[in-house]
């Protein structure tokens, strides 16, 4: 099982390495979102600092939607998904492998977005550990949701427009908890950052459980 | 004054929305039924549920 997950994950990462879609398209788009927000809030720079945590997560969520779409676009062509299943891979392995690859790509996006925040919004980080833990939990959760809904809409004609509608509400708890945790870590709020991170972890475990249950019905003979 | 107005608009909105949905459902049923020629066989509830199996 672990080997199969690793195979699928590695396959996706190799495709990414050759095509560099995340690095050359998604990362710049996410940075562009941050820049556009900076334009929009230019008249009131203090708002930028106050909203930095939220903007980070909105930007990453945007990246996650694009990434999930991309992750299943490469499978929709030429019946790749069927080929994977016929190759003897368990549906769960396909799902978790793709989720892992998407999570890795999102971490990449997140690192760039965080760097963008530091440079463009001139925020200061009070608690690096909180940032890293909350960030990883949130991105893993985004990746699992994205993979689940990507699998649900794979090959559908209006998947491009439907995916954000499906994904964003489900990702909202992550957005909320992640924003609160980041606000604390960036020193803009006196909330309980670790409680919010714990909520992120619970949401993550929930998605893992749902993914576990849904992998079969979604991929077996969809 | 605003109390009465809000209560009134709340009730009216609820009634209109529900009624519109009822009308939409029933009309859609009629249109589809006619299209399929089920009218002769009576309402759809009396037509056997003969979903054909796949494969």
């Amino acid at each position, binding site marked *: 099982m672990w080997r199969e997950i690793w195979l699928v994950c590695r396959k996706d990462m190799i495709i990414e390495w050759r095509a560099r879609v995340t690095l050359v398209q998604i990362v710049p788009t996410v940075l562009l979102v941050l820049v556009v927000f900076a334009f929009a809030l230019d008249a009131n720079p203090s708002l930028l600092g106050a909203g930095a945590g939220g903007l980070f997560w909105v930007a990453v969520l945007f990246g996650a939607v694009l990434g999930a779409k991309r992750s299943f676009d490469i499978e929709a062509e030429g019946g790749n998904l069927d080929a994977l299943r016929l190759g*003897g*891979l*368990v549906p769960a392995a396909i799902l978790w492998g793709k989720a892992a690859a998407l999570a890795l790509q999102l971490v990449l996006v997140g690192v760039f977005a965080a760097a963008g925040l530091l440079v463009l919004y001139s925020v200061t980080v009070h608690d690096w550990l909180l940032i890293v833990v909350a960030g990883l939990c949130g991105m893993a959760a985004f990746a699992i949701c994205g993979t689940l809904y990507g699998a649900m809409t794979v090959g559908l004609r209006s998947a491009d427009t439907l995916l954000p509608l499906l994904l964003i509400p489900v990702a909202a708890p992550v957005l909320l908890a992640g924003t609160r945790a980041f606000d604390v870590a960036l020193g803009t709020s*006196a*909330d*309980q950052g670790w*409680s*919010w991170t*714990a*909520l992120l*972890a*619970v949401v993550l*475990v*929930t998605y*893992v*459980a749902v993914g*576990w*249950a849904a992998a079969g019905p979604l991929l077996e003979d969809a | 004054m*605003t*109390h009465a107005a809000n209560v009134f608009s709340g009730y009216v909105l609820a009634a209109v929305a529900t009624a519109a949905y009822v009308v939409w459902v029933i009309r859609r049923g009629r249109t589809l039924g006619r299209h399929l020629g089920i009218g002769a066989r009576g309402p759809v509830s009396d037509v056997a549920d003969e979903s054909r199996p796949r494969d």
Partner: protein
Amino acid sequence: MTDLSPRHPLEASGDRAAVRRQMGRRRKAVIGAFVLLLLIAGGAATIAGLRNATLFFRNADEAIAERVELGDRRFRLQGRVVPASVAVDGGVTTFEVIHNCASVAVRHSVDPPDLFESPWIPVVLEGRWVPGEVVTVAGRDTHFFSSDNMLVKHTNEYAAANADRIGDPDEPPEGFLDDCPFEVPRL
């Protein structure tokens, strides 16, 4: 000799993944139950932790306790309005709110909603601490709360308007001020 023994359909299909899946089902159920347990425990722990996290407002006593941390940041404050303390001066309404026997003096700069008129109504105010000597029903205080948005947080209790009401309307809700070391003046 040909093997004529009946085969399980899974075996016959030659689908090894399917056979493994069938066998792994029991183990999967155990893991599933474990995950579910973990989920419930984790959820309960988090909810317990977040119960006290201030998501929407701080109660009056917490706002006083956290005054230093709050500094001049905006937050929401919740408490019941003391009827005898309400005064209107120009566009500014001043009053006090009490929660857990802690009283906060409020200067509210916008017209309050209709239900503000009801005695001892709980309200949520948006604003910040401002330094200034004030006297409240609980004694002297070094800060007052400057607010520019008021939301009435009505309770989940409903009673008919025309029913005979016991006592005068100025009466605080039952048990609300029981443990307080101070007296609240009546209208």
